[in-house]
């Protein structure tokens, strides 16, 4: 993995290293300037080992989350690279026909090129000191069957290799480890890969029938089974290797090559280092550029993709871990506030005898940095372990989706560890420094006497200025959001303005309780307003992205906590009236609830920690279940078809599928309409590009155009996301009318929603260099209606252009299904006969059996089938597994909340020693003290959980209501079991963390506690 959030990882590491060095330089400065402070910080850190351990655990979580995200990214990236290196072996680049070459404009795109046309290129490569192998090849997808076992493969790869050059390119070995010799093969003899031999159940000496066209198959004798080939990554296990000349003869393409494979000097791993040199040297070679060919750096491309996918995973997990990371930082703040509270008298005394405020800041910064660096180190290491667990989880998802060939191996790069450590250290350092500054503001007299801190006597003018500044910032953000049509910025602007207004009111003497209750309530109300209602504020819809999820969570929780903490009397009354009715528990409940509400700051932080994590987990779990239900509607994904067939080879196309079905009694299972087999057919042109008709100077970009037959247009039940007004009924798109229009009028088209701009953008979405309808004014997939869009599509296979008028966008759900991403139009629009590429069937009997029967019947045409129900279930299963993994990952933040409760309880025992003595003196039993402490933690944990749960559920109802505008089938379903499990787990662990401090509190001897104060 080389990049993260678009920035090179080395640059990120360098910036972090500089920040870390600055922090360390600050520590060195303190060490030299005030060695006594340094000593005190170190000794304070060692003072209470148990508490220090708890602090370390709390602090390391943010680093662990970052490190685990890196480990997942590294593992994915490493595994792809490993597979690439293993499958491509010595192959570093290849020369093929360049479909984008101007040479082919207006001409049919050739499948290959003449071997004679690249002779000087071959000679140059042979003489090149950076190249150690050149291999001319001709490959073709073919259907193959073992006549004895009846096992077949519709899309096997037949590879013709130059016999002598293959040997020097890279030797192949049979299963016994002996080198194989292509030139020694008998006529029609072939080598087969080991996996291929297993699949087709063929042994050495066995025969396979290969279909090269509509006629009878050609028998091929297996002369050897080889361990591997240069073509392992081509998507099939079955690779047949024969001498080049033989394959040219069998395919009737004498003297033709499909590619020239190149191996750089070095092995499978190091050869790629010379790729850029080799590509630069030959991309402009006369026989490359001049003949419409290109040199593809295949291994480098795969490695680049591996890095991109790795970065994508890191971004994905880091994004979803943001709440936990934020909560981790809140914990650091809380921990240092508690430490300061504990050392208040010492700090007051230090200030009394001459320590300046900055001395306290320095001392706490040093102590915090000791914890910070230590916890970042441990956190980064634990994160790797956590990442490995996540990798195991992701692996099982790959297994479930049938991508069993791809094994995900845990891997962590040293630089990822370093970056995680640096991020953790720097974040902790900054948070510690900020909290140290807050801590150092103390009243010396009150600190020495350990009295509650009086409100800071800040200049009222300064307070007003600060409050007005917050209002101004809020208004600026609000305006930026309005002008940029960005809902999150608009909402944050409103929130800051409201908060600032509250601060202004407060600084002018308004009641704190009233002011912040109103502010908190306004925040909650605003962020719970459905976005559909906010859309009424302006024409059209707001642009939204993932940031609204985080912003709404943070603001809702802030609002709810403000209301709760500023209305402690009401909460106290509610609690004592509810639970205090049992006489025995009354004093316990009163004491358990009073203390947290008296310490508003720390209780507020703890509530926020629990609430924000439970909020995010609830929202995610509810959305996952809602989307999960969507998969139940299989008709929507498969357009009403149960089996989809794909043509893997074009050597023997199906010319008349209806005739073929009718002529094969096995295919009686296929449903008929009016006695005729109902089969929809796609005729896709994959070598195509497009641009908007209005953009006459624009570049063409790759796309796919699908000509659909009349049967498909007449029978498919794919739904439509949006269309032009004439195809709507009561404001809703009428899919049948759209398909009928395509049927009646050639030139009309429907597009896949994946190439239509969306108002919702995900930060981690991958960008592809394909044609999209960006640039069409006011055209978004979320809209209700659209204007027709004129597009020019070039059929690169014949060099003709076709004008299309897009009248509708395919349903977003169906668009992600097993169909090409591009344009769908009638077969007539294409203006020529295009081979059938995809077939849609319905069957009478079991769908899985039906899919197998159809594949078997059409295998010689190279057709593979897919069971729509099974595919949908597989996709549903993997989505569910991925999101459950994500929910688990997000729940990690709860550990922080739990650690916070532990820290608070431990502190409370020290802080309230005298009061415990008093309670014990007036009749509290040990059990009651114990219970009181446990009840106090329960109160915070349950209140935080309830706030998070309530806000999460309200937000999800809201969000699902909004999403139903686009997805009417979305249903709100409460994922009760999942939520109960998380809540119960969080609460149980909270109790466990406070169990020890509660026992310590109960063990306080009353006489001893009362003696000193």
């Amino acid at each position: 993995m080389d990049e993260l959030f678009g920035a090179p990882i080395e640059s990120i590491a360098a910036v972090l290293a500089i920040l870390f060095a600055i922090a360390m330089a600050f520590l060195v400065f303190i060490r030299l300037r005030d060695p006594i402070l340094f000593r005190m910080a170190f000794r304070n850190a060692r003072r209470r080992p148990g508490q220090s351990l708890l602090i370390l655990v709390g602090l390391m979580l943010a680093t662990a989350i970052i490190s685990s995200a890196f480990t997942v990214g590294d593992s994915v990236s490493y595994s792809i690279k490993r597979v690439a290196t293993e499958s491509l072996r010595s192959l570093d680049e290849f020369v093929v026909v360049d479909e984008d070459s101007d040479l082919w404009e207006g001409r049919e795109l050739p499948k290959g090129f003449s071997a004679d046309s690249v002779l000087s290129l071959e000679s140059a490569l042979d003489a090149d000191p950076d190249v150690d192998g050149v291999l001319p090849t001709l490959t073709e997808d073919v259907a193959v069957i073992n006549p004895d076992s009846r096992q077949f493969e519709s899309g096997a790869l037949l590879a013709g290799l130059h016999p002598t050059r293959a040997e020097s390119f890279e030797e192949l070995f049979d299963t016994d480890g002996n080198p194989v010799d292509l030139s020694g093969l008998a006529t029609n003899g072939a080598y087969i890969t080991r996996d291929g031999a297993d699949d087709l159940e063929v042994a050495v000496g066995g025969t396979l029938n290969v279909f090269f066209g509509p006629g009878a198959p050609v028998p091929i004798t297996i002369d050897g089974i080889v361990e591997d080939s240069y073509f392992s990554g081509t998507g099939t296990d079955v690779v047949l290797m024969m001498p080049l000349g033989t394959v040219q003869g069998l395919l009737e393409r004498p003297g033709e090559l499909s590619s020239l494979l190149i191996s750089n000097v070095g092995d499978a791993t190091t050869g790629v280092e010379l790729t850029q040199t080799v590509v630069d040297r030959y991309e402009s070679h006369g026989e490359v550029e001049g003949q419409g060919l290109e040199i593809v750096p295949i291994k480098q491309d795969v490695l680049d993709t591996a890095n991109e996918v790795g970065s994508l995973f890191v971004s994905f997990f880091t994004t979803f871990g943001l709440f936990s990371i934020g909560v981790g930082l809140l914990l650091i703040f809380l921990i240092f506030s508690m430490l300061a509270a504990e050392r208040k008298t010492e700090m007051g005394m230090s200030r009394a005898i001459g320590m300046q405020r900055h001395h306290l800041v320095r001392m706490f910064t040093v102590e915090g940095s000791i914890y910070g660096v230590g916890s970042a180190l441990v956190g980064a290491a634990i994160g790797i372990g956590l990442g490995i667990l996540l990798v195991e989880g992701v692996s099982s998802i790959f297994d479930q989706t049938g991508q069993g060939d791809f094994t995900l191996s845990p891997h962590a790069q040293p630089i990822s560890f370093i970056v995680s450590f640096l991020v953790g250290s720097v974040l902790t350092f900054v948070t510690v420094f900020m909290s140290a500054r807050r801590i150092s503001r103390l009243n010396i007299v009150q600190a020495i006497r350990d009295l509650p801190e009086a409100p800071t006597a800040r200049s009222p003018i300064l307070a007003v200025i600060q409050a007005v500044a917050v209002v101004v910032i809020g208004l600026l953000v609000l305006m930026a959001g309005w002008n940029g049509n960005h809902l999150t910025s608009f909402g944050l602007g409103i929130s800051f303005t409201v908060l600032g207004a509250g601060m202004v009111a407060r600084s002018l003497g308004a009641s704190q309780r009233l002011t912040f209750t109103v502010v908190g309530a306004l925040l909650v109300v605003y962020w719970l307003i459905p976005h559909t209602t906010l859309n009424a504020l302006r024409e059209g819809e707001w642009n939204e992205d993932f940031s609204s999820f985080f912003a709404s969570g943070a603001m809702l929780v802030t609002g709810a906590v403000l209301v709760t903490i500023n209305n402690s009397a009401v909460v106290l009354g509610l609690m004592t009236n509810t639970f205090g009715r049992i006489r025995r528990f009354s004093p316990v409940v009163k004491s358990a609830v009073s203390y947290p509400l008296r310490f508003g700051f720390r209780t507020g932080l703890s509530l926020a920690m629990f609430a924000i994590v439970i909020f995010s987990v609830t929202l995610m779990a509810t959305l996952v279940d809602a989307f999960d239900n969507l998969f139940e509607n299989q008709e929507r994904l498969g357009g009403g078809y149960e089996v989809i067939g794909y043509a893997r080879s074009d050597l023997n196309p199906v010319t008349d599928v209806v005739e073929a079905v009718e002529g094969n009694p096995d295919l009686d299972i296929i449903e008929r309409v009016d006695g005729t087999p109902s089969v929809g057919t796609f005729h896709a042109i994959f070598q195509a590009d497009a641009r908007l008709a209005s953009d006459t100077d624009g570049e063409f970009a790759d796309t796919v155009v699908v000509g659909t037959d009349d049967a498909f247009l007449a029978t498919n039940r794919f739904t439509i996301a949006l269309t032009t007004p004439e195809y709507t009924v009561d404001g809703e798109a009428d899919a049948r009318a759209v398909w009928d229009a395509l049927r009646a009028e050639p030139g009309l088209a429907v597009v896949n929603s994946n190439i239509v701009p969306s108002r919702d953008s995900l930060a981690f979405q991958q960008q592809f260099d394909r044609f999209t309808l960006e640039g069409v004014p006011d055209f978004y997939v979320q809209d209700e209606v659209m204007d027709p869009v004129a597009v020019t599509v070039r059929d690169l296979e014949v060099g003709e252009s076709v004008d299309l008028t897009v009248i509708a966008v395919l349903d977003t759900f169906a668009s992600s299904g097993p169909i090409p991403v591009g344009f769908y139009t009638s077969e007539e629009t294409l203006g020529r006969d295009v081979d059938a590429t995809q077939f849609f069937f319905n069957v009478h009997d079991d769908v899985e059996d039906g899919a197998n029967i159809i594949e078997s019947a059409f295998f010689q045409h190279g057709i593979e089938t897919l069971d729509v129900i099974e595919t949908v279930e597989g996709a549903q299963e993997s989505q569910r597994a991925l999101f459950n993994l994500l929910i688990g990952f997000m729940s990690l933040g709860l550990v922080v909340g739990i650690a916070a409760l532990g820290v608070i309880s431990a502190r409370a025992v020290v802080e309230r020693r005298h009061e415990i003595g008093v309670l014990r003196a007036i009749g509290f039993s040990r059990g009651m003290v114990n219970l009181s402490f446990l009840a106090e933690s329960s109160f915070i944990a349950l209140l935080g959980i309830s706030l998070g749960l309530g806000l999460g559920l309200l937000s999800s109802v809201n969000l699902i209501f909004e999403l139903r505008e686009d997805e009417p089938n979305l249903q709100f379903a409460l994922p009760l079991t999942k939520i109960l499990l998380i809540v119960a787990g969080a609460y149980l662990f909270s109790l466990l963390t406070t169990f020890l401090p509660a026992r310590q509190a109960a063990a306080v001897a009353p006489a001893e506690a009362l003696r000193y104060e």
Partner: protein
Amino acid sequence: MSTNGEGPVVVAKDVHKTYGTGEVQVHVLKGVSLDIARGEMVAIMGPSGGGKTTLLNCLSGLDDVDSGTITIGGSDLAQMKDAEKTRFRATKMGYIFQAFNLLPVLTAQENVEMPLLISGFPEKESREKARTALDLVGLSDRSGHYPSQMSGGQQQRVTIARALVNQPEIVWADEPTGNLDSENAAEVMNLLTRLNRELNNTFVIITHSDAVAEMSHRTIRMMDGLIVDDGTGRAA
């Protein structure tokens, strides 16, 4: 009264101090005025809640006054910024608290060194001065001990050493014997009077103990935020 005969080192005029905001306010000092001469040992007595500690906090610059003026050695405390006041405390004043308030993570020696190091004295010099101060209070053999390893009397003596190490003009003591038994209390007071005599520092001591008051030059009695008696203690 045994003073060096120069003008007063501490001058307070009509000092008022109120605590609390909102509905509940306590007017703690209601117009206190007094002078303390250089080298004088003054005891402030009175019932709890009478304003003794508040007066000491205000006089020593730990707390701000609401109205009135306090000058120390001619410098008006109200005119000083926080950092300036802190430096002033570090160089010109020493403090002794009832609860000792030593830093638990530092040894006796390090606790005494602290004010010097904060004032910017080199480490070696600070160490020597701290050793001398500990010697002065008779604790040179305990210099490496942590507070938790010492008795209450010993801890209070370390506090006295810390208060005196930077040769302050004034030492403020808030019930220095309050947490000690009678034997240790007498020992500490003997030490304070000896140091007052030998070093000629000004001592302002808050106390409930008549014995302590008797050992000082002058006893001020306070009640309800006002000085009700400004008499003399022991003979000079």
